């Protein structure tokens, strides 16, 4: 039986409060709702618009040399043997698989289909002309993954005025591995006179059937001799599957998408699909940030949120911090120059004086020390207090705020978020 958030006057009572609306926050809210718990989620879902749309699990161990793994689980086994403090060392393979299954099932129902090969990462083309490894790839990109693997003749298309997406750059960088790759630049219909084009704007344009038809007409003369066409990810925010299918039919080729720089449409799609599907759950979502949280009676938590002109007091029995790192403002710096956790001032694993935070070489293969700062937790992801015991019985942390990981270098961002949220929710559900 699903519990609902109860309201008395301006007071909301729930079992679980999720602080944060990024990947970890979304996952935590989904898992809690699936377990029949009442959930209030707060947080501005802004960072998700930086997402590539893929769900990375794991591919690389940073170090003097990079060790990359086709099979993410093989990589995680080596990683956790060497780094017993890593968040992945707190979870089993079954928990990883179950977490991903549950998360992708929700997103599937919300309209985003992922393709996943259980024992192997997949490669997607990036705008830099590199190949990125990821575990779960949305269908619009997966078409490109297949075209690459099958050595199809691929045409990459860019749009004049759309910055940071160069078809020729991709084709030139990939030509050693994929000699049959062509590139062209086209004008976007109706935007021929504009100097600066933004992905999101073009995406809204393409939702209009007339613009889609004209875009297909622009592309048609160039596709002869190619099996697959790679486009920047602009094929719709809501009806992306439909638009892509229409284009494939009209052009007689495979059509796939390549993620773009932020703000990315792929990230926006994830957010829109998630928010759109929340209506079917027990989650009450407030797209606002929270500053002050009180720990109250019976080990619960209390904070205020604003919706429109209305203030609510939220009482929650359990809380999950999915507040992210510096960009998400889960972490910051205090007056003495130490890294701090922003809501409870929880102890943070430090990485030395700020002169030691970063390496001189931005691209140093070992990664930057500061990226491993964060929250220390117990085995069920409850952050520890200064006495090395859980700071509060009902407080959990998930995602990039955790210490001892470097998701940007490991390519483990979505994985750490989903898996830590999964384990935390599984535990708190047992205690309620």
């Amino acid at each position, binding site marked *: 039986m699903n519990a609902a958030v109860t309201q008395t006057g301006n007071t909301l009572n729930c079992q679980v409060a999720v602080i944060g609306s990024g990947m970890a926050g979304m996952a935590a809210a989904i898992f809690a709702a699936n377990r029949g718990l009442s959930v209030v989620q707060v947080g501005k879902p802004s960072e998700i618009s930086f997402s590539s749309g893929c769900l990375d699990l794991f591919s690389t161990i940073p170090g003097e040399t990079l060790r990359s793994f086709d099979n993410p689980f093989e990589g995680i086994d080596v990683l956790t043997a060497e780094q017993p403090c890593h968040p992945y060392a707190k979870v089993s393979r079954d928990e990883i698989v179950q977490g991903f299954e549950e998360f992708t099932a929700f997103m599937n129902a919300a309209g985003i289909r992922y393709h996943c090969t259980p024992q192997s990462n997949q490669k997607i083309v990036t705008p*830099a002309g590199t190949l990125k490894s990821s575990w779960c790839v949305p269908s619009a990109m997966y078409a490109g993954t297949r075209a690459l693997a099958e050595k199809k003749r691929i045409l990459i298309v860019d749009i004049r005025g759309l*910055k940071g997406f160069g078809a*020729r*750059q991709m084709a030139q960088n990939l030509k050693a591995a994929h000699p049959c790759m062509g590139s062209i630049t086209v004008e976007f219909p109706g935007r021929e006179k504009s*100097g600066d084009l933004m992905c999101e704007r073009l995406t809204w344009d393409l939702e209009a059937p007339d613009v889609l038809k004209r875009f297909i007409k622009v592309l048609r003369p160039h596709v002869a001799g190619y099996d697959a066409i790679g486009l920047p990810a602009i094929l719709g925010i809501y009806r992306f599957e439909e638009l892509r299918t229409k284009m494939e039919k009209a052009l007689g080729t495979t059509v796939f998408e390549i993620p773009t*720089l*932020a703000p990315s449409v792929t990230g926006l799609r994830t957010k829109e699909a998630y928010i759109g599907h929340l209506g079917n759950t027990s989650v009450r979502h407030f797209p606002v940030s929270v500053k002050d949280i009180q720990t109250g009676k019976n080990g619960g938590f209390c904070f205020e949120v604003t919706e429109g002109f209305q203030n609510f007091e939220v009482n929650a029995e359990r809380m999950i911090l999915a507040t992210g790192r510096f960009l998400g403002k889960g972490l910051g710096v205090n007056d003495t*120059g130490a890294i701090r956790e922003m809501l409870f001032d929880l102890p943070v694993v430090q990485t030395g004086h700020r002169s030691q935070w970063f390496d001189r070489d931005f*691209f140093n293969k070992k990664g930057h020390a500061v990226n491993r700062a964060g929250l220390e937790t117990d085995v069920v992801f409850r952050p520890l207090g200064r006495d090395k015991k859980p700071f509060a019985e009902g407080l959990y942390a998930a995602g990039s705020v955790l210490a001892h990981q470097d998701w940007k*270098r490991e390519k483990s961002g979505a994985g750490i978020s989903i898996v830590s949220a999964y384990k935390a929710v599984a535990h708190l559900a047992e205690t309620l």
Partner: protein
Amino acid sequence: MLVIGGGATGTGVARDLALRGIDCILIDQKDINSGASGANHGLLHSGARYVFKDGEAAAECHRENQLLKRLAPHCIEDTGGLFVAVEKDDDDYVARFPELCRKFGIPVADLTPEAARQIEPCLAKDLKAAFAVQDAVIDPFMLSLDNAADAMANGATVLRNVRLTGFDTDNGKILAARVEHRRTGKPFTISAGQFVNATGAWANSVATMAGANISMSYSKGSLLITQTRINERVINRLRPASDADILVPGGTVSIIGTTSLEIDNLDDIRPTTAEVDAIIREGADMVPELARARYIRAYAGVRPLVRDLAGTSGSGGRSISRNYTLKTHSEDNIENLVTITGGKLTTFRLMAQKAADIVAKRMGNTKPCLTDKEHLPASAKGEWTEPGKSPRVWMSNPERRDTLICECEMVSEYMVDEIVRSLKDEGAQPTLEEIGRRSRIGKGPCQGTFCSFRLAAYLYRKGELIDDQGMDQVRDFVNGRWKGFRPLVRDRELMRVELQESFLCALFGMEED
């Protein structure tokens, strides 16, 4: 003639020689102004700073200051300057300042502290003395690029990325310079009658190749760029030279510096966290808001200091003369080499003239120097370094379909095309860093997070980059900016680095080979 070194002095020598009708080639191991000429305050001294230690150098600065304001006004923002003392500064030192200025002919005007704070409200409340002087701001990139352009217009050749590896000599005479192209490693030789060594901090390495020796020391100076412009005039601290004494406005920013650290190695010059902290702490005594200001970037340059001159006693970089050194190398028995090093940006023209006088005379050319009479023409090479020019040009052409590559500084594809064309005139394929040096790209608050990559994509589209060249160039560009940002990261800056690493590493995997 061969001029080695493409800083202010080297480009000045090339122009001077070209105007005398002398054929010359200029080479630089990297690019125009890639040494100290591109890493200083951009201050055109009034001379007042030197009245305590070197009256002659002070007077020289004053003369060159007046000359350049007349002959190269487009490179100069004639802001005027202030010398100010705060409560803790030495009264005696302050009292001697105006009389010394007058003694050496440096115009100076007394101001009350109140008047000074009215002109510059950013000044500290405990100001106790203030003087107005004729300091100004000079764009060192535009200056050197325009000098190079005018040299080329008068027949000179400029070669970037050409590194000197040695000389072919015969009995005290240099026959040719052995060089190699830095990118391709391709060796070749350049024969010339006379050789000018204008390599700044590298002067001794070059002299050594010719069998001479110059006793030099190196002083690293670091500076910080603020996100907004704090002051209208140049502000100098009136005290014996120390850290963070000068705040120079420039375009939309202000620059505070410098430090002075003796170093032995010229290979890896970069500002450190400790220097950044010292600059902010000291600078805030004079201009308190420096303690809270946001900074875009730090950078460091090396002052070449020659020990042969007077003033070698004492320790540290500041006690050695800032005046220039001219060596004819007759004592080394080399008949056709001249070294010109040390000195200041303000006196670059005079230094160039002195060196050119000697080699021209040796060649039997008796034409007079023209750089003290002829205007320095503004050129297409230097025009895009000016802050505010790109937005002006872009905004005034609203109908043009001109995409902005750098949104912070509003540098568009059209401007990149212009810069690429002028670089290709010099006979070599442009790199991202070279385009960055000639424009405002990467100089705004994003420091290359987005624009380096956009620029690469655009250059690929235009066929100016092929294969995987662009990836290495983006790495170099990002690391060049990172060098200046890393020591500044303290709190909010962490967000920007996180964002940048998310793109470049999490998405693109650019840390991979």
